[in-house]
């Protein structure tokens, strides 16, 4: 074993740059991707056209509240412009605060206060509409309240004007901490502030990048099976196959140490959990990845083809695994996809992993079969 490690170190001496790069790549890549996308996501705004048809206090108040919403970038337009820009998709949608807005609200009439333009490409229309409705609803609701209070105070000695009641309702809404909802995930990731809930699954993203780098690190399986080298293996104390298997063990240990470092870094930078349970899962996952990469490596003789295939495999894992795209919709229809997906049991924290069993069996077959098979 020591000898194998020594030969490995001699190999690494020449390739330490690329080895180091690919070892660090999944971790650093994941952290970078998450940080950049979060930054971009936080700055993203939906361009919405607003037309203000009247200049009353209520209407301009609504306009300013919409403007202050962080999710929306308000573009001032005329109605014709709004229609054209929605058609050409320069605006997601447009809302027109119509003439008579304040008057209608004061009368307690709330039908068709706002006119909107959307197209079939208005992806953000529903949330924006919901928000504007709830803002308008605040105004109409207050008027309604005022009318109700006037009703119940009828015949009593105390009387308030509608304006007074509206001011009071506003005060109550501003001063008191009213109903709100909080969000947290059940696995104890305590409620981060709302903006910080990223759509990324950290470990999923890492698993995809790490699948790629594992495949690339395992290029030694091909490099060291070159025909010229085989005459030299004859002079070795070990059989060729046990040489390969011992190297597989060395790589597994090193990669697992890197994985544990990754877990720690994710804990520091991305608030991921750090438990013993997880370490065991990570080990099973590492074993699966390495045995799979080893077997795939045995299939190839040409290093360039192997590299390209590695990228293609990584791409398909990224698409199918649900680590990058949510695949709930697909797996609920085709459950067999879950079995095909090598990341499934890792990402779903299940101990049983069919892949590792298949791989170990295949490697055992490879070991026991005659030397001529892959030599």
């Amino acid at each position, binding site marked *: 074993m020591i000898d194998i490690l020594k030969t490995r170190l001699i190999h690494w001496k020449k390739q330490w740059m*690329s080895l180091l790069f690919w070892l660090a790549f999944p971790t650093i890549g994941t952290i970078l991707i998450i940080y950049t996308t979060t930054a971009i996501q936080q700055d993203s705004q939906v361009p919405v056209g607003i037309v203000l048809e009247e200049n009353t206090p209520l209407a301009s108040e609504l306009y300013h509240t919409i403007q202050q919403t962080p999710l929306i970038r308000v573009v001032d337009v005329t109605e014709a412009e709004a229609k054209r820009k929605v058609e050409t998709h320069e605006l997601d949608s447009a809302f027109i605060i119509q003439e008579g807005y304040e008057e209608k609200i004061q009368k307690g009439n709330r039908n068709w206060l706002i006119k909107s333009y959307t197209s079939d490409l208005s992806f953000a229309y529903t949330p924006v509409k919901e928000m504007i409705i709830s803002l308008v609803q605040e105004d109409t609701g207050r008027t309604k309240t005022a009318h109700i209070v006037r009703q119940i105070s009828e015949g009593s000695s105390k009387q308030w004007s509608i304006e007074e009641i509206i001011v009071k309702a506003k005060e109550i809404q501003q001063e008191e901490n009213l*109903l709100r909802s909080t969000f947290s995930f*059940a696995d104890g990731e305590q409620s981060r502030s709302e903006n910080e809930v990223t759509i990324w699954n950290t470990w999923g993203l890492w698993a995809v990048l790490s699948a790629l780098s594992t495949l690339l690190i395992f290029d030694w399986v091909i490099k060291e099976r070159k025909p010229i080298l085989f005459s030299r293996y004859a002079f070795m104390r070990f059989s060729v196959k046990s040489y390969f298997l011992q190297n597989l063990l060395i790589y597994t240990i090193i990669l697992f140490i890197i994985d544990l470092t990754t877990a720690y870094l994710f804990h520091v930078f991305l608030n991921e959990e750090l438990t013993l349970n997880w370490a065991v899962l990570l080990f099973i996952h590492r074993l699966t990845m390495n045995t799979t990469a080893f077997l795939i490596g045995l299939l190839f003789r040409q290093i360039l083809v192997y590299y390209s295939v590695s990228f293609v495999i990584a791409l398909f894992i990224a698409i199918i695994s649900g680590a990058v795209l949510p695949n709930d919709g697909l797996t609920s229809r085709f459950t067999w996809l879950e079995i095909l997906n090598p990341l499934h049991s890792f990402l779903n924290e299940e101990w049983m992993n069919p892949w590792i069993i298949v791989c170990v069996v295949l490697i055992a077959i490879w070991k026991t079969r005659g030397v001529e098979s892959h030599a």
Partner: protein
Amino acid sequence: MNSIKHILLFIKNNGLQLKRKWFSLPLLFFFPIIAVVLVILIVASFFLPNENNPIRIGIVDLDQSTETQMVTQLIEDSTQLGNYVEADMMEEEEAQTATSNNEISAYLIFPKQFTNDLYNGNSVELPVIGNPRKPMESLLIHEIIGSVVRHIRASQANISTINEYAKELEMSDTQRNDLILEQFQEFVLYTLGSNQIVNENEVTNQATSSPIQYFTTGALFIILTTWLLAIYNYLHANNSKQIKQRMYLYGVTELQQIIAKMFVTLITVFLFSVILLVIILESPHFDFEMNEWIKITLISLFYSISLLSIFGILEVLTVSYPLRLLCQSFLALVSILISGAVIPVIYFPFWLQDIITYAFPYEAFYWLTEIILHNRIYTDYLPLLMITLAAVCTLAGVSLGKERIKP
């Protein structure tokens, strides 16, 4: 003259290489298409939820009042997703096990004294607990509950206002409570009817344009980019040092080989595109005049040359093949993302939009959509042409410069 001869030689060589391995050409042809179709399937299946398989949420009601039931109803009814959301009442432990068994996507807890606090204007928190294994669905549920909460919050202020005035009017407690309950119901109904506020007008993006066309254009753009990446790298030959030296003595430069590769890639991608378009053109959505075809081809050509030049620059600059593949894949991904083929650029942050508009993928995709979707007659090739020239010149400069430094 000599270098043109060399380029022609390498083109022939690359052509032969493709011919010899013709059986892998269909693989190269279908691989990006399969990838794109898979992505579309996955995204579509997520956004068109399965009615037989609704998003299930748990409701833990620690308050047990008429009001909490009404709020539950409100959550179920408040979105168009209503049919796809199924809410079940359960105990807290039940909800926890259901979450860990992956049976529900999220659960919501009505805390004790929910109604009382609501009426008296005390602060109330509605915790939503998501299932970490269904993050997208959890966030969706949270959005829905968030908008319901926003509505109730507005009503809550009004109800406590009424409550305050009722107190001042010295109403009896039972009478006041009845009034408040009645008002709460009224406000819930009022909220349900709030869609009347907006008079919706759906404009279609001019007669020709439809999401199908938009997304097809995007998908084709992605497929084009992937083909360029795949075929360019497919032509890569791993020359040993000796052969490289011998070629150098013949006056062969790296640039000549890269240009030959670019040329063969362009021709192959062009042929691939023709085949794919013949299949797609069966559908009635794409119907163009000859001169429109010429415009589309020209723009795609400029885009392809720019992208390939940058691939070439990366090839000159990186030593290791896997690293180069990584850089080129990353570049292709960035180019797809900023082109607007996946997410329209208008949704990006403002500062990013400013930068993106100078990038060639955006420029190319913009004019493609203008021609294909909006039937624009005028096309401004100049910016794209300039970028293409700049990219080619940079490639030449970098490559020749490197050869001069390293003999």
